[in-house]
């Protein structure tokens, strides 16, 4: 799943149309759209709104190791040599209110310009309002707070901040059409890249281990052998090990259940457990 955070409907609408996203009615406080690949939510602009919105939506989800969180939106730019419409990957995010600095992990090759971004509580219209000395090029109102809220749910390599240059600190010049156009022009490049990243991550995270906790026989056996919590955890570890050695864990569990059906006491259970341990090692 790719979770996309935008501040305005105008930023979201090109993606809603391009990917045929449906409104998700289970979210009543914020507009959330989705399909089997994407969940897109509109937080409204500003650090507090984006923090609350993202936390509200993500709290109901269970992001997995191969999911991505993407903050995709427009931004102001202090460098007039960077053309309007340029997509930028933020490698440093400054929070103007607190002076804190955040560094997203940059693990993946990408086709974008790398920039330093500063998040302000509202629009700014000149360079003198930039607070950091770190060569800030981009300005927005959400990224720093989104970084902090998304960190509750994702690891930092899963968090990507892509901003499209919409103006040179002239927020009044930014119209709805202009916003849509900035996003539309970069949809293909951005989402092709995101898809490639997910594939890379799926390969990197590929893990054929069956979750032992999901096997009913595991719990049955632990109960049958009257195992303590510690021993049950040891049994789980043993079963993980046996899986990695290519043994049929399900079959082993079934055999053991059969053999120990007459286990009556904790001491008997402990003895059976030791025998089972030797078999698995």
């Amino acid at each position, binding site marked *: 799943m790719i979770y996309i955070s935008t501040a305005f409907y105008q930023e979201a609408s090109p993606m809603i149309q391009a990917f045929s996203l449906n409104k998700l009615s289970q979210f009543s406080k914020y507009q959330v759209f989705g399909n089997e690949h994407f969940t897109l939510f509109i937080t409204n602009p500003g650090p507090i709104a984006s923090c609350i919105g993202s936390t509200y939506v993500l709290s109901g989800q269970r992001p997995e190791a191969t999911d991505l969180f993407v903050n995709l939106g427009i931004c102001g730019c202090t460098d007039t040599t960077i053309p309007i419409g340029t997509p930028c990957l933020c*490698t*440093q995010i400054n929070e103007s209110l607190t002076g804190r600095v955040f560094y997203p992990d*940059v693990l993946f090759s990408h086709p974008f310009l790398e920039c330093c971004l500063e998040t302000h509580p509202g629009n700014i219209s000149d360079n003198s309002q930039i607070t950091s000395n770190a*060569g800030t090029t981009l300005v927005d109102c959400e990224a720093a707070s989104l970084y902090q809220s998304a960190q509750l749910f994702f690891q*930092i390599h899963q968090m990507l901040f892509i901003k499209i240059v919409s103006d040179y600190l002239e927020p009044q010049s930014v119209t709805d059409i202009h916003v849509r156009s900035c996003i539309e022009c970069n949809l293909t490049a951005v989402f092709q890249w995101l898809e490639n990243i997910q594939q890379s991550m799926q390969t990197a995270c590929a893990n054929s*281990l069956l979750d032992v906790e999901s096997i009913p026989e595991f719990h049955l056996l632990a109960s049958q052998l009257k195992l303590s919590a510690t021993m049950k955890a*040891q049994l789980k570890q043993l079963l993980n*090990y046996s899986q990695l050695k290519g043994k049929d864990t399900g079959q082993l569990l079934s055999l053991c259940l059969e053999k120990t059906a007459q286990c009556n006491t904790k001491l008997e259970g402990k003895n059976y457990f030791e025998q089972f341990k030797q078999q*698995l090692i």
Partner: protein
Amino acid sequence: MNNLSNNLFSSHFSHIYVETALRNSASVLRILDKFPTANVIEIPHYKDIFCRSQQNFCMQKKSPKLILAKKEGTLIYPGAPVCQDFGNKHFYYTSNVMNCIYDCEYCYLQGMYSSGNVTVFVNLEDFFLEIELLLQKHPVYLCISYDTDLLALEGILGYCEKWIAFAKKHKDLTIEIRTKSANTGALTALEPSDNVIFAWTLSPDFVSSHFEHKTPSLNQRLKSIKVLTEKGHRVRLCFDPIIYHDTWKESYSAFITAVFSHVPTDAVRDISLGVFRVSKDYLKRMRKQRKDSLVLAYPYEMKAGVYQYKEQLEREMTAFMLKHLTNHVPESIIFQWKECPNESNAGN
């Protein structure tokens, strides 16, 4: 703009984070010269990158970044009980570099550090100063390549050469450079020295190919050792950790034969021998990150906060190794890891 490559993970050290105060220092500029296309990002302090929360060590290992920093505070630490002191009373270690470019599944670094990025402390002169102060009190035995592989990074940092030059000036200092590298090119011009110990960690092919990712093969390491020993150097061989696997007896038997067919016994200064062991906290973290690692998934037993093999197996593996090693070298030069700290246990 960066170009999209077929392998989507960025190259190693594609980004270099540099503490702002060091940005124009000679040592930093020397290192940056080696990476002309890297993106350099200035940071206030290395911990702003190295200690971020929610990092994934294993994912970062696929595209590690370089952090250049100055180390403050304590620079030289007393040697840890889980490490071999080889009978040296004043045993210390230091970390000029945190993290290694190799990716061994059993490595404690992934339990100790939250980041897979490599941090290099460029203020080597401060480390040397602290050692000189120690040397005023007593001789020092110092391991300089524990939390990294300095020889593997020699082409970028040149730290081994600097340490060796420093040791040459201080005969009361003995340094150990532990490595899995085959990068001996830079060192072949070096003269043998009693107070510089090159220590190779060696494992059978099965262990090396299954668990020691990105490392040179056993054969490559043995060839490197041979190059140095032919120049008169005496080396330390580290058979540590010994890793259990189904065919461990055949593996380790063939392995020891291979080692001594390349390394003349009179070129072996001493041997370190120890089965795998790791602290409870580290293993918990390591298992969480590498769920599919056979070596980490093994059902170790815990004793005094350290996970290790069952005592019977441990004794069997150690006795096996001793028996085969003593066909080639005297037992007096074999130092075994024992649970009790600070016991000199050569020849036990």
